[in-house]
């Protein structure tokens, strides 16, 4: 059922989840358009501006020319912040996290870029097409040792992660299934920078997987995985943890998994249904996710930052534990509470202090936040709504102590207080 109202609070909640950071003007636009039109815009390809296209092309060319992964990070960050298709970028990150591949081992900017384009192309498309494409993707073949998987020496690395991390999750396959699947993927190699089926290294003898026996090749193993009931449930967990809550309930998993089955793994209608449901806007889903470093950092830059020094930003993100193209392991970023420990909190606080007070990271423009002079607006924008009475009282006191003739100065002081509150780490 659709939510009964779609005002600024609801629009802000939706936009925080589907893009990186929110500008107040975007909330106004969404409220004017209404929920359905907003979702239609977010889930269909919008034309990019000429300025975006030329910047994008220049940054991509630079990254390919230098072969430096830091340049590719900047290319993606600029897309995240300025693309007219922000949900596509958030999904691309979701798939990068799902099929977590690291440049640390792949050591190729062109391969990392090509894989990233796969995630973007298939962002809200059909998951099976994405899975099949990823299995033949050069970066993945290097990352999970596909190249080392030979007839007489099967390497289980890719077969294991396909089941454990890409489709089914622990508990829905046996060690034997993995060993058999590894043989089916033998000979899936890389030649001339492209996928190559190396028939001489492929083990063509019969394999038994999930109780079915056949002379399976890799792509048939992928289809066997997709046909397992656990797959839709596993994917439901991924979508819910990317967009809805850090801790999905059994009932949320069941509902979403049904949706995925019903739409045959087509992601766009699944997301549209999730975002149109009043459940998504209900209290348990508000402030139910801990901001990732990208949500936190771009969340400050999007409404407030101009002339951004991207090198500084990539360093901060790496220190905060979300280094694009270099996830910590094949499991990706675990998210939720795993983002938070003492050092990362200090780094988050320090980033905000430096950004707001030094002009070293970007030029700060507080124009969009003139309404922060009202405690209620500040609470909506930064804390997700009215906090407990004690916190509210402390904010009122802080506001009284930070009045200033220079309104921009007061706004910055107040932002410093808001971003240092635990509530600000939630979205």
């Amino acid at each position, binding site marked *: 059922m659709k939510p009964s109202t779609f005002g600024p609070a609801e629009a802000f909640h939706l936009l925080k989840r589907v893009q990186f950071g929110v500008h107040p003007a975007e909330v106004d636009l969404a409220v004017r358009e209404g929920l359905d039109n907003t979702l239609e815009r977010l889930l269909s390809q919008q034309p990019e501006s000429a300025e975006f296209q030329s910047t994008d092309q220049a940054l991509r060319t630079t990254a390919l020319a230098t072969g430096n992964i830091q340049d590719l990070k900047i290319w993606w960050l600029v897309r995240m912040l300025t693309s007219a298709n922000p949900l596509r970028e958030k999904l691309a990150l979701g798939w990068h996290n799902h099929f977590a591949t690291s440049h640390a081992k792949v050591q190729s900017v062109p391969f990392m870029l090509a894989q990233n384009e796969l995630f973007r192309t298939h962002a809200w498309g059909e998951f099976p097409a994405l899975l099949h494409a990823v299995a033949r993707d050069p970066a993945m073949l290097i990352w999970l040792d596909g190249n080392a998987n030979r007839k007489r020496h099967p*390497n289980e690395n890719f077969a294991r992660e396909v089941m454990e991390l890409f489709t089914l999750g622990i508990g829905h396959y046996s060690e034997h299934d993995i060993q058999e699947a590894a043989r089916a993927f033998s000979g899936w190699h890389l030649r001339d920078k492209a996928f190559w089926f190396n028939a001489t290294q492929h083990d063509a003898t019969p394999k038994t997987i999930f109780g079915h026996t056949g002379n399976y090749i890799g792509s048939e193993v992928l289809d066997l995985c997709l046909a397992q009931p656990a797959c839709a449930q596993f994917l439901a967990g991924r979508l819910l943890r990317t967009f809805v809550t850090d801790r999905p309930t059994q009932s949320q998993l069941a509902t979403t998994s049904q949706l995925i089955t019903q739409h045959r793994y087509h992601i766009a209608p699944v997301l549209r249904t999730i975002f149109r449901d009043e459940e998504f806007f209900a209290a348990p889903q508000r402030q139910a996710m801990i901001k990732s470093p990208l949500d936190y950092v771009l969340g400050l830059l999007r409404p407030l930052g101009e002339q951004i020094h991207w090198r500084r930003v990539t360093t901060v993100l790496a220190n905060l*534990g979300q280094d694009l193209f270099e996830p910590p392991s094949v499991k990706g970023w675990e998210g939720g509470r795993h983002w938070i420990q003492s050092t990362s909190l200090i780094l988050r606080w320090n980033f905000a202090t430096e950004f707001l007070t030094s002009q070293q990271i970007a030029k700060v423009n507080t124009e969009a936040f003139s309404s922060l002079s009202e405690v209620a607006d500040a609470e909506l924008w930064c804390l997700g709504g009215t906090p407990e009475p004690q916190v509210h009282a402390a904010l009122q006191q*802080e506001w009284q102590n930070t009045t200033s003739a220079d309104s921009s100065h007061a706004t910055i002081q107040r932002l410093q207080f808001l971003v240092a509150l635990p509530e600000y780490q939630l979205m």
Partner: protein
Amino acid sequence: MTDCQTTRREFLRWTGSATALSVGGLLPQVWSRCQAAEPGDSINDRILVVVQLAGGNDGLNTLVPIDNDDYYKARPGIAIGKGSALKLNDRLGLHPSLTGLREFWDAGRLAIVEGVGYPQPDRSHFRSMDIWHSAQPQEPSPQTGWIGRSLDISQSRQNDRREAACIGMEKQPLACIGNVALPPTIQRLEDFRLKQTPGQSQGLNSPRWSAAVPKPETVDASDLAFLRRASQTTLSAARQLERLVDQQTSSQYPTSEFARKLRLISQMIAADLPTRIYYVSLDGFDTHSQQLPGHATLLRELSEGLTAFLSDLEEQGHTQRVLVTTFSEFGRRVAENGSLGTDHGSASVLFNVVPPGRGGLYGAPPSLSDLEDGDPKFTTDFRRVYATLLDHWLQLPATEILSGTYAPLDFVA
């Protein structure tokens, strides 16, 4: 410990307030060692350093069964030769990189536990790591770890203010998460400094900040409560560490990241912080291919790091107070794979460096001919090691923390 009690009384007289007990960061140095201890109890002075070898350390090439033909048959390309292993007895030798551990062995300080594992071994890094961290193999998605639950108990006692710290970890290890306890995670000291606008009282320095961040109820498990605890812990640790000075030591630390982390632990011990459990990780043990050179480097980092660290502590006079224990999420298959590496296995060996006297062999060596799915069967439940560390070293109730009774081993008196 009468000294402590005297100091405590003097301190209370000096401040005139018992509430000062809760503001760890503001206590004078002379007080802080006592701060962690229960009166009349010398046990709580002890420090435990947990070293995680992440990725699955190949136990068979670490503690080499030099008289075992099955070992040499299974590993024609990567076995450590009998001649190059650092011989401990007729049956066993250490990997040649472990010269420092060999010296600890000679000094009666190396307690080796063989055949450590758990029933129905899981070969997923993540799952097996969760099992070791939580010590709750039956729990499908554990939320707390053995150290975290230990802290919950010790910190709920009236006079026990022992704390823990995770050094150099990129994320909070599950082992250190309690229902309430959430020890600070310090990646590098230089990143642990709060940036402040001089002379101003904004953000965290605002007098309104602590009013806006109330202390959560013990039973509150919400994300907001978690974030409030984390924020409070972090601020208090940051203020403690502001006083930490980069002191000189004659002990030469190697240049590795691992040694850098151990050096920070040594500085924290020297500063007499109430931290009693340190958690640190050495990563990269997932040796699927061409493992000989990489594994040798990692073990050298381990051995050289520990040697520098423990000789530093010896110089500071802390040898009797410190126990270092290592673990890895699993060992590796007995047989090498086709890429001169080894795949995920199960039961393996772990090391403890203890105060002199209780070094030796503990647990029992698993058979290399009677295998389960290509792996040795475990002989010694890992929770027996934890029980030893909890009951005998830290004197915390292992049965309660581990939800079961596991017989301690004898490497702690």
